[in-house]
């Protein structure tokens, strides 16, 4: 029986992130983590005719890279858990159609990466399935045109805006030993502290992230110092200091171990306003860079907290506040891979 402490799941068996795959667009390929991505494209169309097809291409590339590195075929995977930002999560739906793996579509906005990873790990741990793939994608242009404005529109954006990452990340979850273990997950609750500005998601998501991190630490009985890294998805330069203050007030000082994927995936001079966001933000950084660091043993225990804003453009125009959520997953170095 897996141990359950309120919203924190501690997996009983050794669950491994057996393999990962990442694919990105041009801006990410010019960023500091470019060498950690399996595939990158020179332009946002990724060789396709529309932005939506480009996002699908990225998702398929990430999953195929993940399978290839694990020497597995799609037919050997029991469950496909996937999501993206688009209406009806169509990118995930179409990729599932292509892969022909039993499919559960999931939506957590930019927190979907850890949401899918947590649920996949739990199902493997419970013994219902042997192998699952958790995958997410996002695309700057598809997100822009669905949530905000046409991509060629000249209206200025405020400095709190975030820039959606164009990319996709996929992880293969199984009990087959590998250098990276998935040990725990903390499922978040939805928060609404009154932020109505969809151009300021960092501020809106910080309370959700703070609660998930605090709950995780309380429910596992650990200290901040037990982690080499507490990584948030896309709080950006606006939400990060707010998060640190929120946790500091609760007695947790994370400043020495905290980083944010949205600030890692781009360089400061890449004109991304407050930082990166989107499902792929946490996914490509975690499945690319973090997994590499864990494999090399540079990191031992990482808490990845993907943050998402669960709003819709209509609801924002109706002057509702942004409902936000954060899901956390603990990744640990398995130490050599053989247990």
């Amino acid at each position: 029986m897996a141990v359950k402490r309120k919203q924190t799941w501690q997996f009983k068996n050794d669950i491994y992130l057996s393999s990962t795959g990442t694919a990105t667009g041009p801006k990410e390929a010019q960023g500091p983590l470019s060498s950690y991505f399996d595939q990158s494209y020179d332009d946002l169309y990724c060789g396709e005719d529309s932005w939506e097809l480009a996002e699908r291409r990225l998702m398929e590339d990430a999953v195929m890279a993940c399978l290839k590195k694990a020497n597995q075929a799609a037919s050997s995977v029991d469950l496909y858990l996937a999501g993206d930002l688009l209406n009806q999560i169509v990118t995930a739906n179409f990729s599932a159609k292509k892969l022909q793996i039993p499919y559960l579509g999931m939506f957590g906005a930019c927190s979907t990466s850890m949401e899918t990873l947590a649920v996949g790990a739990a199902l493997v741990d419970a013994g219902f399935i042997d192998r699952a793939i958790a995958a997410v994608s996002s695309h700057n242009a598809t997100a822009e045109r669905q949530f905000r404005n046409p991509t060629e529109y000249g209206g200025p954006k405020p400095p709190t805006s975030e820039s959606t990452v164009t990319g996709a990340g996929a992880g293969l979850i199984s009990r087959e030993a590998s250098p990276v273990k998935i040990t725990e997950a903390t499922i978040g609750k939805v928060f609404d502290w009154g932020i109505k500005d969809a151009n300021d998601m960092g501020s809106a998501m910080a309370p959700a992230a703070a609660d998930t991190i605090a709950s995780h630490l309380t429910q596992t009985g650990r200290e901040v110092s037990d982690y080499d890294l507490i990584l948030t998805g896309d709080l950006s330069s606006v939400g990060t200091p707010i998060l640190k203050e929120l946790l500091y007030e609760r007695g947790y000082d994370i400043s020495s171990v905290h980083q944010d994927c949205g600030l890692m995936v781009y360089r400061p001079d890449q004109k991304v306003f407050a930082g990166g966001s989107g499902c792929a933000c946490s996914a490509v950084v975690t499945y690319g860079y973090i997994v590499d660091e864990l494999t090399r043993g540079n990191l031992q225990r990482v808490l990845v907290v993907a943050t998402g804003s669960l709003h819709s453009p209509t609801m924002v125009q109706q002057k509702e506040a942004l409902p936000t959520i954060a899901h956390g997953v603990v990744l640990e170095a398995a130490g050599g891979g053989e247990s």
Partner: protein
Amino acid sequence: MAVKLNNPADYKQNIKPYQPKPKVFRNCIRAFWTGGLICAFGQLIANFYVTFFDFTETTAGNPTTATLILIASLLTGFGVYDKIGQFAGAGSLVPVTGFANSITSAALEHKSEGLVLGVATNLFKLAGAVIVFGVVAAYVVGLIRLLFKALIT
């Protein structure tokens, strides 16, 4: 006494110090010279039409507007206008070029949905508000003016 952030009711107020302030002065300077430049350029075009064609100073307004709209549409098509817009702010938004950009960018964006349901249907996605409010305002002001006239005479 330090303000506590962990207070949902006052959160929005309390995080104000954490939010980046727009560089108002710098943005106003940029808006000033880019907007002014577009208007001066418009003056140049108007004079061109007066000199080389059969337009007067008043009637030159029409072809001038059309010319600026053409230029803005092309710049939008070339993918340049959005970059200008981020730099110039109100300087590219307020002139009629901003209006053209809002129409062209919306039309361009929805090309993937076809000419009728995509391009044509979405043409006024952003610009519709301007036309609607402009017309409604003109009606209201016009009616008030007529009412005044009728009351006075």
